[in-house]
């Protein structure tokens, strides 16, 4: 029994240590940021914004980071004070509620919840605190007089990069890599496939998800992304769309090795990825979480809260494709034509 105990202890401590290491890089930034944020602006009645991240938090080079960018911009431009809190992997809903309660209780108003996992928690805590305004990203289910839902038409942006992939593919074979097999990422896939088929109905589309929930590591596992992408390139694909958060870095590496192309996600990854692999990034599907967060905080400083859904689609410039790097300049006209058709309603992009 002692042998088992020792083994178990070693294994477990290793796991705990790794988890702690993974988290530490993200958390180091927050105290420094908030201290600089609080010292910069003059002491007029500053807006105190609370922001609760989902798993990964600041530093995930993806969704959460995009929200963080919006918050940082608000700090710099609007002189607000902000506090950030982060979810632990596998935590119960009650922990999310407590996080929001703690932020609300500490006088932060508005409170922004990043990610659909906060849906139930926001609905509950917003009801308890009618004087505090809440915003939730990627969820329309939590509704109330003091809840703003920041929603994105990921399928529309994905349609455009799907069209770009089909136009650029010489082998008529493209790929889609989703980080985690969840409905949100299915929206990316649906739009991407529709866009590619709009260009070439006979195109071959390979698709793969890196992990299954509740294992959300697929949003931050470059090694898994690399293996999956290498498999697709071997099987004949020459453009792969990585809707996989931090795992995209691995997809870009695989593209570099195979001499093929890849498409980034969320932010303009031509600007943020490792310089060595930037040449493979055809374009990126922009999901402007930072814009949504900044807009929400800006309207809060003006005292104008609008509860209910606020949809960031192509029309509202909430999703888009990126052009930096110049690799889609030759097909820009075609893509913009698709964009106009989606905006005018001539093309309806499927959601799943």
């Amino acid at each position, binding site marked *: *029994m*002692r*042998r*088992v*105990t*020792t*083994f*178990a*202890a070693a294994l*477990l*401590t290793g*796991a*705990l*240590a790794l*988890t*702690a290491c993974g*988290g*530490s890089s993200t*958390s*180091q930034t*927050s*105290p420094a940021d*908030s*201290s600089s944020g609080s010292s910069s602006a003059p002491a007029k009645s500053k807006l105190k914004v609370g922001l609760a991240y989902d798993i990964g938090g600041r530093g995930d080079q993806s969704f959460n980071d995009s929200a963080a960018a919006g918050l940082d911009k608000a700090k710099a431009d609007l002189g607000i004070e902000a*506090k*950030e*809190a*982060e979810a*632990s*992997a*596998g*935590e*119960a*809903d*009650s*922990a999310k509620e*407590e*996080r929001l309660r*703690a*932020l609300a209780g*500490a006088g932060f108003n508005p409170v922004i919840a990043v990610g*659909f*996992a906060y*849906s*139930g928690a926001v609905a509950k805590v917003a009801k308890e605190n009618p004087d505090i305004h809440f915003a939730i990203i*990627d*969820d*329309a*289910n939590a509704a109330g007089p003091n809840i703003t*839902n920041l929603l994105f038409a990921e399928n529309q942006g994905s349609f455009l990069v799907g069209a770009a992939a089909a136009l650029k593919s010489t082998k008529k074979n493209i790929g889609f890599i989703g980080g985690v*097999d*969840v*409905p*949100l990422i299915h929206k990316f896939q649906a739009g991407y496939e529709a866009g590619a088929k709009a260009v070439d109905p006979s195109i071959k589309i390979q698709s793969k998800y890196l992990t*299954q*929930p*509740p*294992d959300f590591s697929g949003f931050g596992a470059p090694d898994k992304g690399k293996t999956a992408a290498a498999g697709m390139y071997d099987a004949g694909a020459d453009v792969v769309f990585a809707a996989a958060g931090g795992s995209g870095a691995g997809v870009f590496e695989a593209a570099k090795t195979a001499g093929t192309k890849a498409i980034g996600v969320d932010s303009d990854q031509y600007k943020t990825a490792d310089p060595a692999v930037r040449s493979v990034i055809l374009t990126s599907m922009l999901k402007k979480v930072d814009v949504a967060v900044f807009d929400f905080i800006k309207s809060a400083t003006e005292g104008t809260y609008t509860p209910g*859904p606020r949809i960031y689609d192509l029309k509202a410039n909430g999703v888009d494709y990126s052009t930096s790097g110049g690799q889609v300049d030759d097909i820009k006209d075609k893509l913009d034509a698709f964009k106009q058709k989606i905006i005018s309603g001539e093309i309806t992009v499927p959601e799943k």
Partner: protein
Amino acid sequence: MSPRVDLRRLVLAIGAPVLAIIFASLVTALVLVAAGDPVWSTVTTLWDYGSQPRTIALTLNQGTTYYLSALAVAIGFRMNLFNIGVDGQYRAAAFAAAAIGGAVSLPKPLHLLLIVAVAVAVGAMWASIAAVLKVTRGVSEVISTIMLNAIATALIAYLLRKVKVDVAGSNNIGTKPLPESGHFPGIPLIPGSTLDVYGFLVVAVLAGIAYSVLLGRTRFGFDLRATGRSQSAAVASGVDVKRMVIVSMLLSGAIAGLVGMPQLLGSSYSYSLDFPAGLGFTGIAIALVGRNNAVGMVFAALLFSFLDVSSVILDINDISKEIVLIMQGTIVLSVVVVYELVRRYGIAAEQRRVSRELTRTPASEPEGARA
């Protein structure tokens, strides 16, 4: 034999956990200093937040779940089986129970019984795969249960999509919510808190008592512990080891099936994408810290639960909440190390005492002869 020796044993038994906690506190303090966080205010912040009525209720709720998970792991440990698969077992069980519980409609006590029975059965069934592999093919349960965790993840993800109900406008999917008859009533245990404690707390306490009685007071428990200590000795005394492996794995899995129940029946009423994961691993840590003892694990579960629940407040106060993970890891390590040191010290002290008495016996003989 003499009361003095018993006293020394008592000191050793109490000294070990105290030493472990002192050591863990020192390491944590050093880490906090190294990270540039104030040690004292971290402790007071945790304590102030953790001692509010609402937080106490949350700590008890979370502790209920942790305790059940630790019990499941501990049964394996006592038998020298390392069931890493509690994680997969409870998730498979909770999913099946939620799916079936949401699909049927029964009067209240029956409905609850059905849900719990399904959970226990599925947990045991999932664990039985590893048990059968071990006794028939000699597959190490460490390997097979880790793999079964991954298989459970994939299987649940697949089946969840078959039975899911879409929540309008949400990116979450889950099983059909349990009707009112499938809700386990809460207990307003903590005065001043609007939050009820999970009614399942009672079940966890009963499970702890059953565990203690089963292992300490029954023939089966004796056989189980004997097999855990020395398999060959157990075989020599007529224990069917294969049968013991199967039965203890089934029991471990059955209790693992209960792990998701407090959450399912007391709070979320549905198995969705954000159902808590990783509780099986927390259970391993708590079983280690609680030394597989029914009462020890209560304290360990409450300690871990207190740290996890209270960590929420650290973020708000600009202290990295990952410090809590470091605390928990250090506690596990120091408990294991200190107990081993104390055990060795105890054996050495016992040997010294025996040899002292042996050398004294011949010296006292002449006195006896004279009389």
